[in-house]
């Protein structure tokens, strides 16, 4: 199978961005980047990135070939709000924005087929006081699962030729193992 030109995790990030565009109060201010600087007139905006990814260990051990590795990729959706001590509704504002994110993200768990499943994992909030108003940072975290073929080793572009086959015959799967016929057939030259 030819190598894909775009990594699956990139396709997932792009699908998340597409799902959030114009679906929240951030409008089109949705960026794929871990490093985003917001200005006053750009709040709220959304920054999306993928800080980590694991391969599910159980997918190492399957007997299928080619092996399919199940990945769990973490995607963080970050945003920020400004508020003042007098603005007691800041939690409601942040939670309403979170609801908009959830509504967009939960519309299609496979995001058009780029993953096998997706699930919200957590929401965290943090307040920074270094500004003319307090700044509330909110991170909504999702986990994405996707399957990929294990990549071929660079030094083994093709599998070895098939030369012999070991076979065992059992009539209707009813014969005792000791009575089953075993044979080896040579296929090569």
């Amino acid at each position, binding site marked *: 199978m030819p190598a894909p030109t775009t990594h699956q995790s990139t396709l997932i990030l792009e699908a998340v961005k597409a799902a959030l565009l114009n679906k929240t109060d951030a409008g089109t201010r949705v960026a794929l980047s871990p490093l985003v600087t917001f200005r006053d007139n750009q709040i709220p905006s959304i*920054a999306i990135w993928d800080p980590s990814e694991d391969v599910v260990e159980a997918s190492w051990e399957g007997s299928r070939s080619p092996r399919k590795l199940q990945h769990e990729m973490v995607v963080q959706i*970050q945003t*920020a709000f400004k508020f003042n*001590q007098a603005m007691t509704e800041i939690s409601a504002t942040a939670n309403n924005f979170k609801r908009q994110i959830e509504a967009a993200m939960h519309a299609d768990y496979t995001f058009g087929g780029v993953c096998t499943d997706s699930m919200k994992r957590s929401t965290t909030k943090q307040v*920074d006081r270094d500004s003319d108003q307090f700044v509330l*940072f909110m*991170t909504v975290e999702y986990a994405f699962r996707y399957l990929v073929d294990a990549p071929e080793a660079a030094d083994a572009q093709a599998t070895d030729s098939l030369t012999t086959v070991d076979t065992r015959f059992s009539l209707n799967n009813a014969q005792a193992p000791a009575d089953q016929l075993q044979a080896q057939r040579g296929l090569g030259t």
Partner: protein
Amino acid sequence: VTWATLLETADRAALAQWGTPVVYTPGNGSPAATVTGIFSNASQIASSDGLQVIGTQPRVFLRLEDLPSDPSSDEPTVTINGTTYTVDNPQVDGEGGVSLTLYRVS
């Protein structure tokens, strides 16, 4: 001449030179007073992980004896150039001056 007197003289000279009118409204119900303070609003960046929000950090320096309440125990608001701020984290210098960190109300 004591150190405190020298410092007050320096503060008063600075307030006279660079001061701006500050409407100080006590939170305890006392009448508001217009005093002179040195206002600054330098750039400041709030950050969390890779996310940054560009803003400013307004502060004002005042002489405690000019104020109708003690901002360390009161919760005043101040209005400077038409913008109203709440006050947080009063930092007294121990010599009669106080620096207030300000947050825009709206």
